[in-house]
């Protein structure tokens, strides 16, 4: 019964908590807008490092590619320049050769016996040189100009030397123009020579061909020089390229660094910030604030931990609330019990504390039970003491009367005093004594009868009155002992299940009081036994004496006819003994009744003091305990 009472309150909240907390964990987990939060930390770190490695690889690759490309462009450019330079230098030699050949032709032609074969050979070589130079220039203009090579153009543009492309074109155009004039003059010259007009040819050579050739040569040299300058420009371009590469490298490095930094910040942000908020919550819990909750974002480990912490905190808050409610209920019940106890301490034992299902309720139940038992015990004790008191009074009265009777007999004659004492002992006996004195025979039988009657009465008293009552007291003692045992059991059992410390501390004091009560009652039972023994012994003595008296009386009564006077005479020492014994007995009875009265009063006092003082001390103890709790 106790087990089943105790278990449900403990198990029901845990079940309810489990049922509530599980779906709540799920519902608290929001899907984050940030996809990163939904990836586990390990994957995230791997991903970030892969991205970083990728960035680094891209940067390195870009720089390497750029470098290779620029190297390629430069080498192409230099190759092209070298080739055109060689061609144009050869072209310059052609022009110089043309000049010398024309002079040679004129020299040959002006000699009186000119060799037609030499002239013809010279003309052929002139024609050949003309064609060669024309071919060289044409191929240069058509193929080797920078403007025909977009890569080289781009390289020069990068080096901010873009206008040199057009400058080269201009110089090429000027070379073409001058060569055009020279070419035309050369054609005219060859025509004149072929026609045999050496004079005209000579004039033409001096006036036009030579200056034209010089111009062509100058223009060509300008072009060649310019090409050399282009090489410098390419070097500049290469420098610029290198600078650009440096800048690119620096920028790329910075960007890569920043990107890695940013990714690191992003990743650490997804970790650190949420860990910090988690830490804030746990710190708040450390400081006693249970109201804070972690914002659960994402689906990773931190989100798991955050959700678990939230669930845990919810469970803790529920538990705290529940224990607080229980504590309040217990305190209320305890207060109520204390007020009930105060009523009891005020002397009213008819209280019935309200019984509920909690430990205090059980305590109240026990308290009610104990109070009930105690009340019955007190009532029975009271009745018993009253009865005892009545009996004692009666016995005291009787003993007094008996002793008076005995005293009245003693100063007079022995027989008369005995008769008087007997007659005073009971209203009928004095007459009987008188009758016995006047009519010895009938009076003796009457005395015997009366004595027998007294003996019967005393036996009745000893049997029905004291014996029964002492037996009842003994039973009562047994009952109270049993009750105390039960109370002990209950109290100890209750201590085992008690959840409240103050209740636990209250119980021992209560137990102490109950033990004191038990000791008191044991003493009382002892006294009662003593009384019983004494009374029984007294009554037995009395009975013996009375029996003796009866025998002695009955013997004279039976032998009355034989020797009546002697019997009385002989009876005289016996009477003396009886009187002495009767006085002693009366004294004993009186003292016994006094003792009995004292005892009953003591019992009453004890009960009353127990009612007031004992409960007061108990109540004081309990209230002090409750105050400290």
């Amino acid at each position, binding site marked *: 019964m106790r087990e089943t009472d105790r278990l449900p309150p403990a198990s029901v909240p845990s079940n309810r908590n489990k049922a509530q907390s599980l779906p709540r964990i799920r519902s608290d987990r929001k899907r984050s807008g940030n996809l990163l939060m939904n990836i586990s930390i390990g994957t995230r770190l791997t991903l*970030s490092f892969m991205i*970083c490695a990728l960035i680094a690889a891209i940067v390195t690759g870009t720089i390497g590619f750029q470098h290779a490309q620029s190297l390629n462009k430069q080498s192409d450019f230099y190759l092209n320049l070298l080739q055109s330079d060689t061609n144009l230098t050869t072209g310059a030699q052609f022009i110089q050769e043309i000049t010398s050949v024309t002079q040679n032709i004129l020299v040959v032609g002006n000699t009186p016996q000119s060799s037609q074969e030499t002239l013809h050979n010279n003309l052929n070589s002139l*024609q050949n040189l003309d064609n060669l130079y*024309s071919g060289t220039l*044409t191929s240069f203009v058509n193929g080797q*100009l920078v*403007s025909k090579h977009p890569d080289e153009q781009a390289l020069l543009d990068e080096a*901010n030397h873009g*206008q040199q492309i*057009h*400058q080269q074109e*201009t*110089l*090429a*155009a*000027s070379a*073409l*123009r*001058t*060569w*055009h*004039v020279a*070419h*035309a*003059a050369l*054609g*005219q010259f*060859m*025509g004149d020579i072929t026609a045999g007009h050496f004079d005209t040819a000579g004039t*033409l050579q001096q*006036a*036009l061909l030579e*200056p*034209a050739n*010089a111009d062509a*040569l*100058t*223009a060509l*040299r*300008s072009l060649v*020089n310019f090409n050399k*300058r282009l090489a410098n420009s390419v070097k500049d371009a290469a420098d*610029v390229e290198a*600078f*650009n590469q440096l*800048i690119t490298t*620096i*920028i790329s490095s*910075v960007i890569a660094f*920043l990107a*890695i*930094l940013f*990714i*690191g*910040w992003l*990743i*650490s942000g997804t*970790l*650190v910030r949420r860990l*910090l908020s988690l830490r804030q919550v746990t710190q708040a819990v450390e400081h006693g604030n249970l109201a804070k909750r972690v914002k659960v974002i994402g689906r990773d480990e931190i989100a798991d931990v955050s959700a678990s912490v939230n669930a845990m905190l919810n469970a803790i808050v529920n538990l705290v609330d529940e224990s607080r409610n229980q504590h309040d209920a217990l305190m209320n019940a305890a207060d109520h019990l204390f007020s009930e106890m105060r009523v009891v301490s005020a002397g009213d034992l008819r209280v019935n504390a309200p019984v509920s299902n909690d430990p205090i309720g059980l305590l109240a139940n026990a308290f009610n039970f104990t109070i009930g038992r105690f009340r019955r015990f007190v009532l029975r004790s009271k009745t018993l003491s009253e009865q005892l008191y009545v009996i004692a009074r009666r016995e005291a009265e009787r003993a007094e009367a008996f002793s008076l009777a005995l005293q009245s007999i003693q100063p007079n004659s022995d027989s008369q005093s005995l008769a008087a004492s007997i007659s005073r002992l009971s209203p009928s006996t004095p007459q009987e004594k008188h009758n016995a004195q006047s009519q010895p025979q009938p009076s003796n039988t009457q005395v015997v009868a009366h004595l027998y009657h007294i003996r019967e009465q005393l036996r009745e008293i000893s049997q029905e009155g004291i014996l029964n009552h002492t037996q009842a007291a003994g039973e009562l003692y047994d009952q109270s002992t049993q009750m105390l045992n039960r109370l002990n059991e209950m109290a100890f059992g209750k201590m085992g299940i008690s959840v409240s410390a103050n209740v636990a501390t209250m119980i021992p004091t209560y137990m102490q009081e109950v033990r004191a009560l038990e000791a008191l009652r044991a003493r009382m039972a002892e006294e009662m036994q003593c009384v019983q023994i004494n009374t029984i012994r007294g009554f037995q003595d009395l009975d013996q004496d009375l029996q003796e008296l009866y025998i002695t009386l009955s013997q004279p009564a039976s032998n009355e006819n034989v020797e009546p006077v002697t019997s009385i005479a002989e009876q005289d020492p016996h009477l003396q003994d009886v009187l002495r014994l009767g006085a002693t007995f009366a004294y004993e009875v009186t003292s016994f009744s006094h003792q009995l009265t004292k005892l009953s009063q003591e019992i009453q006092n004890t009960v009353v003091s127990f009612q007031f003082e004992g409960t007061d001390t108990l109540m004081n103890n309990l209230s002090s305990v409750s105050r400290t709790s």
Partner: protein
Amino acid sequence: MIRECRSSHDLQGSFKRTLSSCKSLILGLFVAIFLCSCTGSGGDGTQLSGTIQIDGSTALQPLVAVAATAFEQQNPHVHIEVNGGGSFTGLNDVSSRKVLIGDSDVYASFAAYPNPDMTDHIVCVIPFSVITNPDIQVSSLTHEQLVNIFSSNTLTNWKDVGGPDIPIVPIVRPATSGTRDTFRKYVLGGRDEGSSNQVLQTDSSATVRDAVARTPGAIGYLALSAIDSSVRQLAIDGKYATKDSIIAGTYTFWGYEHMYTLGDENPIVSAFLDFMLSPTAQELAVQKSYIPIRDMPLPQVALTRATDGSRSPSVA
């Protein structure tokens, strides 16, 4: 990254506080890097200062003068002295290092100026034109007629070429003139000028113009940049000196304008020569009736020759 994490752990408070400023800092860093890279390749911050002297061709002088003014405005610490004197004066002065740049209408012949550092910078094309006194109503002459007028002096009266009965007075320039050299080379076909020509003493386009304008029946030649309404332009073979006719190759009386230097180590000279090719200066050239060099295409010449030895059309 690990260190970053740790530091962010340690300095979390300040880290959070400075997070926004960090972002702007990173952004600013980017901008600064880009600006640095742009300006690094964009130009040198050094201010040019100094003086350069230029003389030579009077045909090119007007363009060089305005370009120098513009350049001086761009570079306040640079002073450019521009003088005339004729193409050969310019070539002589530059080869003897009297000036840093010598303007010339003609090529500096390697035989005459053997310094290998003589560097040719062609800055524009100058069209020339034959001019007459405004009283002469002849609009066009052929090459042959011009040769007869200037070289053989056989053509002496304008009425022979459809003009008024006024004797032809050819006014030519001194031997230092590049214009004269060009005229001789491309119009006269290399022939010497006639002995009866009236040779001016100073080589100046303005002098030629004024002389032609003053002298009745005068004929001369002048750079298009120097021509104004006081003289009358004459077509050659029906072609006037226009950009189109020059590009098409039908008008041959034009020349490249050269600016010769001895090497190009001087930064001011390099900058000024670059400036001469810049769109600003080329626009000035257009205003001064020059043809910008960028408008001149590479001539698509076919240098093949018929083996019969036919003469050049310019001479014929």
